[in-house]
């Protein structure tokens, strides 16, 4: 990964305009964007309907579309946004974080849940999760890689995401806490981004046989 070291200055040496900028940003965001919740509800309802219907096309659509989104977001966060964030001045970094992180809080769990649930059901319909499937070794390899990604995402990414937002909401956010959590978030995103490359290799291998 590129340099993700975030050099936030101590509050005492920050220029006044930076503090003012940070304070206005704090007041101007929701930790959970409420407008996004109905969209999430619609998507999850669509997932339940697709699983209940057990038809090939809806399952393929959900697995491929959301799986592609998951891969792209992970790669983009890990290798483009992450290194870029590390080079931004602190006030700009806070502005980006207050706009980006609440959206990530809704996007990532939704994308991951839909990809995995639709993928499992699709595998059941197509017989690819059956241990007698001729490419079963590659399928099990995908379970293992996704397992690593799940542990990193659930244990590091999600908690860091929520904690950064809660810290930014405080009257006096601690720059060192934000620096530490953002570093953790970007490192985890980069790691899962790297694992996404393995997933691309595995899925294309399964597809061509």
């Amino acid at each position, binding site marked *: 990964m590129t340099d993700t070291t975030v050099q936030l200055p101590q509050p005492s040496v920050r220029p006044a305009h930076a503090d003012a900028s940070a304070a206005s940003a704090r007041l101007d965001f929701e930790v959970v964007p409420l407008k996004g919740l109905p969209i999430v509800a619609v998507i999850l309802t669509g997932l339940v309907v697709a699983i209940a219907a057990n038809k090939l096309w809806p399952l393929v659509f959900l697995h491929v579309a959301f799986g592609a989104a998951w891969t792209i977001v992970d790669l983009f966060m890990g290798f483009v946004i992450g290194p870029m964030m590390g080079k931004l001045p602190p006030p700009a970094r806070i502005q980006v974080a207050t706009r980006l992180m609440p959206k990530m809080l809704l996007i990532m769990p939704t994308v991951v849940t839909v990809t995995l649930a639709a993928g*499992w059901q699709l595998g059941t319909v197509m017989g690819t999760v059956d241990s007698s499937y001729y490419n079963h070794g590659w399928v099990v390899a995908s379970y293992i890689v996704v397992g690593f990604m799940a542990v990193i995402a659930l244990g*590091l990414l999600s908690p860091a995401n929520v904690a950064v937002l809660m810290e930014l909401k405080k009257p006096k956010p601690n720059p060192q806490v934000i620096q530490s959590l953002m570093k953790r978030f970007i490192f985890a995103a980069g790691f899962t981004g790297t694992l996404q490359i393995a997933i691309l290799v595995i899925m294309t291998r399964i597809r061509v046989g």
Partner: protein
Amino acid sequence: MNERTLPPVTQLGMASLALIVAGGIYLASYLPRQVPLTPAIILLGASALLLVVNLLLLGRVGNFAWGRFVAVGKWALLAYTITAGLIEFAFLRDGMSGAPLLVLTLSIIVYAVHVPVLIAFTVARYD
């Protein structure tokens, strides 16, 4: 930065989740054949034990922001209960039953409790 000495909640939580995932992969990799459930039960038991240890260690921390922990944890618990429900629905839809379903359901419960604990802990530790 908060320099309090806190138990390794994140590390234990990730180890617990890794055990759950390993059990799930073990069961899934043999489908639809019947497999000995003992390894999956051992992994589940170890994972649940780590959850209990984590909660006990956390409960012994003095001067912890429990208000913040509960405020964040309850919403995270709601969110992860919904995702856990979706996973369980997929298992039931596929006709899973008996002991494998029980093992997977208990695994999902550990997941749905432990992830909110990790989120709430990460927020509350800096309060």
